[in-house]
């Protein structure tokens, strides 16, 4: 023993002036996390390995026992090889324990919502970074922590730009498969084409009738057909009416070195009011908070304490993408009712980006995030899990901008290019005819020829008793993104043209409003009135007409309203169609949230195509005579 101590002392004395990689030399002590063991971090051999270098204290450890067992094993071997003394082994073990390494574990969640098939950069919007840049950012975040999960809070597909929509959103599923995501809670738009189609998104196989299915690159297909999602769709509150079972699993569990995190996924209870009846046929949608709270005991019975809710319902807040000023919306009430066992809520649906703390049912603040829309943002979330209780003890979240200048991920560019090339033909598919170019330019009253035509198309799609029985439609001017060009010589309208005009894929919603509510709706068009932040003149359908005096006071500007020449009765009920964006109170038209007897309808472009086909000789520009601005 005397000899061994002496040898170590000499090595230590040499070390101060020695070059690196001289066995026995050292530059500091072995440090675990921030705990200094007091043991010199000696170089062990010519390969520069040191005492600390053999101890994997930087790795994630699922529990403290695992790390201590590792240190015990490595240090015994080091002592046996004469590299450390027995006392040093004791000190290393004590430092391993004091470092608390393994007692907590950091797990990174990468969250997004309302992706809506925005795979192709700049399609639909100059601020669309595309899935290629989105993937680059996700890879960067994944690289920061090998323990991670990528999760989506719904509307990953549906209401997509053409490059995804044309191919039944299979391109988006394939892109997400390549990125490697874990769970997608269903949103309302996942139901746009009904349960069977959504199940096909999960399980694969080609669409039974649509020729634009199964056209992916070989590496993305399975047996020559669409492979389905490699991640799990979750829908805790969507039940099959026939048998009461959930259509998709209520939750998914991901295991991080033995620390399980459950992800409960769901859409908004109100999904049937904003999706076409065909899309939700045979399905029931349950209350969000009740559904989560009922699952908590089941999860805890499995020893799961870390619980994340992925919910396609949201709110609004100001203060930037990480702000939470004046948070409002349905998510507030839902979180207020959540069991305190829920550790994090990833929300969506409103397309807003926020980073909030909202109180749960015990009055404790819970982190609630939403990452905006269309691949533009990602939420970078770090969960700190106590590995003894296996519960989340800290949540840090930050919304990031994907960035349109971010480098594109080469692992996805071929997929996007493939579908882009395939879509060239279909984009030129003729869906109808117009007699002249139809402009979205508004006249002095705020009415556009294209606004008239779109409103008429929406009325045509929803005026039958079975499709809503609508008598008037209102279209937001911001939802008309381009003019409809006249393609010489005969005015053919292509699918690509129609898509460019209405790229959002909103579906139609028919609701009942009183005449008084219609008046409130129209008064809300003017900046500063009823919370409106800009002047937005809604486009109206044939048969409805109104006049306004811009100079009048708020709620006194509309001077007349008629339907088919008869004055609108404030106390009478009218069936009104708007798109799903307006129906949710979009563009500040809050009164539309109060509409009753809601019925979902077709996607707007489908309604437009049907209208063109119902007028084979060609649709003429609208008359722009329905809205009258008084002098």
């Amino acid at each position, binding site marked *: 023993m005397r000899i061994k101590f002496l040898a170590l002392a000499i090595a230590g004395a040499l070390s101060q002036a020695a070059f690196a990689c001289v066995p026995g030399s050292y530059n500091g002590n072995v440090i675990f996390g921030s705990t200094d063991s007091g043991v010199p971090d000696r170089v062990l051999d010519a390969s520069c390995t040191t005492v600390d270098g053999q101890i994997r204290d930087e790795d994630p450890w699922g*529990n*403290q*026992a695992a790390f201590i*067992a590792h240190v015990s094993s490595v240090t015994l071997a080091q002592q046996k090889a004469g590299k450390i003394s*027995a006392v040093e*082994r*004791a000190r290393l073990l004590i430092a391993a324990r004091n470092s608390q390494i393994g007692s907590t574990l950091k797990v990174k969640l990468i969250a997004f919502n309302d992706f809506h098939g925005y795979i192709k950069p700049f399609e639909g919007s100059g601020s669309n970074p595309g899935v290629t840049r989105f993937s680059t950012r996700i890879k960067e975040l994944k690289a920061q922590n090998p323990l991670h999960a990528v999760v989506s809070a719904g509307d990953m597909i549906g209401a997509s730009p053409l490059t995804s929509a044309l191919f039944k959103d299979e391109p988006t599923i394939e892109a997400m498969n390549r990125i490697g995501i874990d769970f997608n809670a269903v949103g309302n738009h996942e139901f746009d084409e009904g349960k069977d189609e959504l199940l096909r998104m999960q399980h694969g196989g080609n669409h039974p009738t649509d020729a634009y299915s199964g056209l992916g690159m070989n590496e993305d297909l399975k047996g020559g057909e669409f492979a389905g999602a490699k991640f799990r769709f979750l829908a805790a509150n969507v039940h099959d009416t026939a048998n009461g079972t959930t259509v998709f699993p209520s939750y998914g569990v991901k295991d991080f070195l*033995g620390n399980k995190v459950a992800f409960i996924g769901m859409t908004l209870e109100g999904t049937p009011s904003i999706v076409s009846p065909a899309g939700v046929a045979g399905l029931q949608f349950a209350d969000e908070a009740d559904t989560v709270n009922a699952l908590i005991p089941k999860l805890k019975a499995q*020893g799961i304490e870390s619980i994340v809710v992925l919910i396609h319902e949201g709110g609004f807040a100001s203060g930037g993408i990480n702000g939470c000023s004046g948070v409002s919306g349905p998510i507030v009430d839902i979180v207020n009712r959540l069991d305190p066992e829920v550790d994090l809520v990833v929300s969506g649906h409103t397309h807003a980006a926020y980073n909030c703390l909202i109180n749960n049912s015990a009055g404790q603040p819970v982190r609630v995030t939403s990452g905006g829309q269309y691949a533009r943002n990602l939420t970078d979330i770090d969960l700190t899990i106590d590995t*003894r209780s296996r519960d989340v003890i800290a949540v840090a979240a930050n919304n990031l901008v994907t960035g349109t200048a971010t480098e594109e991920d080469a692992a996805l560019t071929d997929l996007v290019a493939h579908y882009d090339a395939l879509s060239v033909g279909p984009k030129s598919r003729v869906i109808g005819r117009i007699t002249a170019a139809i402009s979205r330019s508004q006249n002095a009253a705020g009415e556009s020829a294209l606004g008239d035509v779109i409103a008429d198309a929406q009325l045509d799609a929803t005026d039958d008793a079975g499709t809503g029985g609508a008598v008037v439609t209102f279209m937001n001017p911001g939802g008309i993104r381009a003019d409809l060009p006249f393609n010489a010589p005969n005015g053919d309208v292509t699918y690509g043209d129609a898509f460019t005009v209405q790229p959002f894929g909103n579906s139609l919603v028919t609701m009942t409003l009183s005449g008084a509510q219609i008046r409130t709706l129209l008064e809300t068009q003017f900046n500063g009135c009823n919370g409106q932040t800009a002047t937005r003149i809604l486009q109206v359908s044939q048969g409805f007409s109104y006049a306004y005096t811009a100079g009048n006071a708020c709620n006194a500007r509309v001077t007349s309203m008629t339907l088919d020449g008869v004055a609108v009765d404030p106390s009478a009920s009218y069936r009104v169609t708007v798109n799903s964006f307006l129906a949710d109170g979009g563009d500040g038209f809050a009164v539309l949230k109060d509409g009753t007897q809601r019925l979902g309808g077709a996607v707007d472009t489908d309604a437009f195509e049907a209208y063109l086909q119902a007028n084979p000789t060609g649709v003429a520009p609208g008359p722009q005579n329905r809205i009258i601005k008084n002098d």
Partner: protein
Amino acid sequence: MNLIKTTLAVALASVCASTQAAHFIFPTGNLSLIGGYTYAEATTEAFGTVSADGLVDILSGAPTLLGFGALSEQATDGSALITYDWVREVTLDAQTDPSSVGFSIGGTSVIGFDGIAGLQGVVETSKVELQTTLMIMPDGETLGSAIRARLSGSADSIFSTSLPGLEQSTTFNLIASSGGKSVNYTGNGAAEAFDLSLDTVVGAEVTLSLSYITRPGWVGAAIDIPAGTVQGFEESGLMAGTLMLAPVPEPETYALLLAGLGLIGAAARRRRG
């Protein structure tokens, strides 16, 4: 020869397929016991009897067991110095991978005397132990079907002393039992590997006991240890291993494997001939 290769491959695949089967959980209400202590004492003409003792703290989480104890004591009188460092750890990790439960039990003790006149004796008695019960849960297997619990690992120790007459006394014990059967390993830390198989059934409980006991001691004629030198003893020990589950191999599998090996052997002999 292709047939032989195929036969062998099938047999090997059947055996190798054994690595993924069932997993362990701690049954509800399970009481795992972890304990540990040390008591060390030295007698010198100058100090009389000096002693130190310590216990193992329990730091377990739900699917893991962790006991850890440490002491770092000194007694001085002028230039005389007695030091005692003691660490014990015992771990069982059914969390990171419930189908391959890792365990370890070990520690380090160091007693040093520097500038002691009339050292008459020293003794350390230290024990750390763990007892637990794990239940075998199916991963597709039917409850009650045969399954094999395998315990493999090694027990090793390092001991040195400069005190005449002081000898190592180290014992590692491992006992696993299930359904009335049990297997055990006992070693003295002489770098031994163990590989035990306990045949049981899916749904059964396996109880596991681990212990690490050290009792080095010496009493004799007083000796003088000059100042500036250190004499004493040190021991480090570790028994570590894994508890895994594997299907109980069917007799046909062994037969197939032997047949394959036999055919290869025969072919090899023919080539040599």
